[in-house]
């Protein structure tokens, strides 16, 4: 769903219900591919991006760390992500994934400029 200012990415519907792996070489629906094909472009174009984490077959930490921690390593600041990225997880696992992603973002090292 897209409004002028917000884009919602439902991973299960818009990407894959079985996201897996860290790098492009790990498969068709890796964290790196998600970040580069959907997440980063959306963050550049829209004021807010909501990512829905429910209804997939689950995420490995390798996928989530690469997709979200990778944003920081690729140059998006943690403050920018705190104000532009909205994570939604309703199920117990979804809530847990949300907390892990916040942890990956705050733990990721920002590149030296």
């Amino acid at each position: 769903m897209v409004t002028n200012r917000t884009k919602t990415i439902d991973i299960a519907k818009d990407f894959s219900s079985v996201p897996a792996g860290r790098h492009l070489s790990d498969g068709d629906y890796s964290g790196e591919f998600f970040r580069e094909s959907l997440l980063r472009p959306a963050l550049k174009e829209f004021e807010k991006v909501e990512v829905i984490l429910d209804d997939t077959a689950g995420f490995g930490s390798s996928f989530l760390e690469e997709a979200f921690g990778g944003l920081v390593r690729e140059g998006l600041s943690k403050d920018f992500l705190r104000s532009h990225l909205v994570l939604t997880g309703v199920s117990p696992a979804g809530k847990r994934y949300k907390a892990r992603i916040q942890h990956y973002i705050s733990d990721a090292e920002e590149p030296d400029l």
Partner: protein
Amino acid sequence: MASVWDGTLAAVIGGVSGALAGIGATTWTNKTNRTATRLEKRIDDIESATLLLRVEALAYWASPAGPDDSVAALKVIGLWEALVSRVDMLTGLENQVGDLFQVNNHVDALYELITGSDFQAKERQADSDKVARIRTECTALCTDLHASRRMVNRWRHFWKRRKAN
């Protein structure tokens, strides 16, 4: 004559009050027992989920990536999610089962250990160090669950003792 009636009345009131108190205490104890049994069952379920996860995660990391790797990985994630759901069922019951902070820390640590690094990678190698750490983390989680189990039992026996007294 009046004092005889007063005494009889007092005895009747005393008897009825005692009976009511007894019924109340029994009802409360039974309710406490039922709650304790339910909580113990939930703790058992968490322990079972941990053991299932342990078996699959150890098998996954004891061997390198193979043709069934993606299925095995999904199974591991599903078992971790099942563990999360079961731990979540104790949330809000900390008065009876104790602080779940450590249990939750172990659940997160297991997630990082099991599904981190080369998880789901095409060239994943077996990792004996990871196997040992998963084993240790699962044991630590079950040890912390014993603390919750002890607390439930202490709480149950407190009411049993009160009833016996």
